[in-house]
């Protein structure tokens, strides 16, 4: 009887201690999507446009092609999570004149993600003035506002990005208006933008990121880097085929009560400042590789061609016009400009040092009716 007791006990111990076989992968992401073409220049402005690294939170993959490019029979290739399967298959030929849907199923068969792939021709900006009125937005599935623009032929272009996806991780907002980047219902004209520096609470403090400035910029936000390399989350810029001269718009600004440093301690005598700047940069290097500027180099990279920045944003509780003129550090190559060789971004932030998690909680920047005035083409 006693012997049996021991046996049961030893069996229990063994069951507890041994490792099971590795479970099958549960993830089902498209990590990269690319084409293999003999003459990529016929379809793309540059070879590096043939490959797209897909941010993990995104399920839309958009290739930018030359106007009039034939996309009716293309084979698209993917790298996906190891062990996962994709339907239709990687390398199968499809007509991309309409978006094509791909479904990725995880290795364990339990999870799926659906992606939409589309090809868009880069429509030429016809007018000399690019209007940004912040009228087009919708709620993401996580409940915060995301903005898009309509191209001149009425197509939706998701060019705007914000850090809302990062703030969403803290669970600090219960409705879209509590996010750092939110819709201002009654702007200067129709809807506008309301950027508010928010506390990220105890979860944010745990990782030394105590506040989140409201921000909106042209480009993409890569949530996956939020903890490890927050300055790399902001992928600034969209292709831009005009030479910008100046930026105009309207703002209101109210700094928050207490300016705090990255350690969360108040900095006496310091008042928060809002920030607006625009950068025009070359998007390929000498070897033809794609160049993207991030939070750590958007103003300092040697690829920057022109910068416009609001030098002093005085607090204002009424709509105040602003104007920033681009100062050019180098020449613009007109051929490269036509070939989509330049990127443009404009960045709005409710705290000047928000990227370093410094600022005053409550600082509020309202923005509306922004215009990018470009050089008239001969």
């Amino acid at each position, binding site marked *: 009887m006693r012997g049996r007791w021991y046996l049961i006990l030893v069996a229990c111990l063994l069951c507890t201690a041994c490792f099971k076989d590795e479970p099958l992968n549960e993830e089902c992401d498209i990590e990269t999507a690319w084409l293999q073409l003999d003459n990529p220049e016929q379809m793309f402005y540059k070879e590096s446009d043939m490959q797209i690294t897909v941010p993990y*939170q995104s399920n839309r993959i958009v290739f930018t092609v030359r106007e009039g490019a034939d996309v009716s029979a293309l084979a698209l290739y993917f790298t996906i999570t190891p062990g996962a399967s994709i339907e239709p298959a990687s390398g199968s030929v499809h007509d991309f004149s309409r978006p094509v849907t791909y479904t990725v199923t995880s290795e364990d068969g339990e999870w*799926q993600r659906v992606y939409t792939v589309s090809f868009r021709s880069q429509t030429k900006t016809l007018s000399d003035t690019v209007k940004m009125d912040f009228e087009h937005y919708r709620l993401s599935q996580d409940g915060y506002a995301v903005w898009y623009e309509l191209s001149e032929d009425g197509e939706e272009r998701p060019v705007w990005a914000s850090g809302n996806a990062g703030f969403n*991780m803290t669970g600090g907002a219960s409705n879209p208006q509590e996010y750092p980047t939110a819709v201002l219902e009654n702007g200067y004209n129709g809807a506008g933008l309301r950027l508010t520096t928010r506390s990220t609470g105890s*979860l944010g403090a745990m*990782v030394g990121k105590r506040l989140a400035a409201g921000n909106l910029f042209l480009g993409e936000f890569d949530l*996956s880097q939020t903890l490890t390399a927050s300055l790399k989350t902001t992928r600034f810029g969209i292709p831009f085929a005009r030479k910008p001269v100046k930026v105009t718009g309207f703002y209101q600004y109210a700094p928050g009560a207490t300016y705090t440093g990255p350690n969360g301690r108040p900095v006496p005598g310091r008042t928060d400042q809002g920030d607006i700047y625009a950068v025009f940069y070359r998007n390929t290097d000498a070897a033809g590789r794609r160049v993207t500027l991030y939070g750590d180099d958007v103003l300092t990279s040697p690829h920057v061609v022109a910068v416009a920045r609001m030098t002093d944003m005085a607090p204002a509780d009424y709509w105040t016009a602003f104007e920033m003129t681009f100062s050019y550090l180098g020449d613009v190559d007109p051929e490269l400009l036509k070939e989509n060789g330049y990127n443009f971004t404009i960045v709005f932030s409710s705290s000047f040092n928000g990227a370093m998690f410094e600022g005053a909680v409550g600082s509020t920047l309202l923005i509306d009716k922004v215009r990018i005035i470009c050089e008239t083409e001969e």
Partner: protein
Amino acid sequence: MKRHVIIAILLLTVALPRLRAAGSEWIYTGRLGFSVGGTAPMGMPATIRELNSFKLKASYSVGFDIERRLSGSWGLLTGLRAEGKDMDIDATVKSYFTTIVQGGQSLAGNFTGRVVTRVTQRMFTIPVNVTRRVSDRLTLQAGPYVSILTRAKFEGYVYDGYLRRNDPTGPKVIVGSDENTRGSYDFGDDMRRLQLGLNLGADWHLRKTWGCFANLAWGITGIHKRGFKAIEQTLYPVYGTVGIFGRIR
């Protein structure tokens, strides 16, 4: 809970007739030992891939037993022990459901990477054991115990990996290894203050009045309160104690 009561009653029904059989004596024993062990799921889940480090955290156990000798070689024992059941572990996990909690905020999802868990438990334990003298030297004992916790901490952090929020298709956040890039958790408030378990022990008499002992305590209640869902499995304390005992009278 009902099951535990039934086990206790069964043990008593075995022991009680012998208790009445008289001709018995009382024995008082002091015990000093140290415990090592872990707080682990019963049956290792496949999501736990590797133990990178398991720091032995020896906690002292001081106890006092009263044993009633019954007829033949049987006896019945109870007592009071002050003991600690600690753990400090570093494990590699794959798609392990967990929650990063700080203050009132939480972030839940499937984590792949490394997890450090530190458990501190201080408690008073009352065993109710049936004893059996096998020989002059060896006495075995087994029975249920109840522990009342005076201190309970369960904290740690996830690092060197990534979290998929809510489920494996959710937004991905890379988690680094330093304090500003990893995620901490603290589930001390969610721990039970009363634990039940079974223990099995052996006393080896080196001399007539003293000897050494070994004891294994196996928790049958999880260390967290019922309804606690922030980590994937229910964790049970399983600790072994070795030490010396001495007859007081």
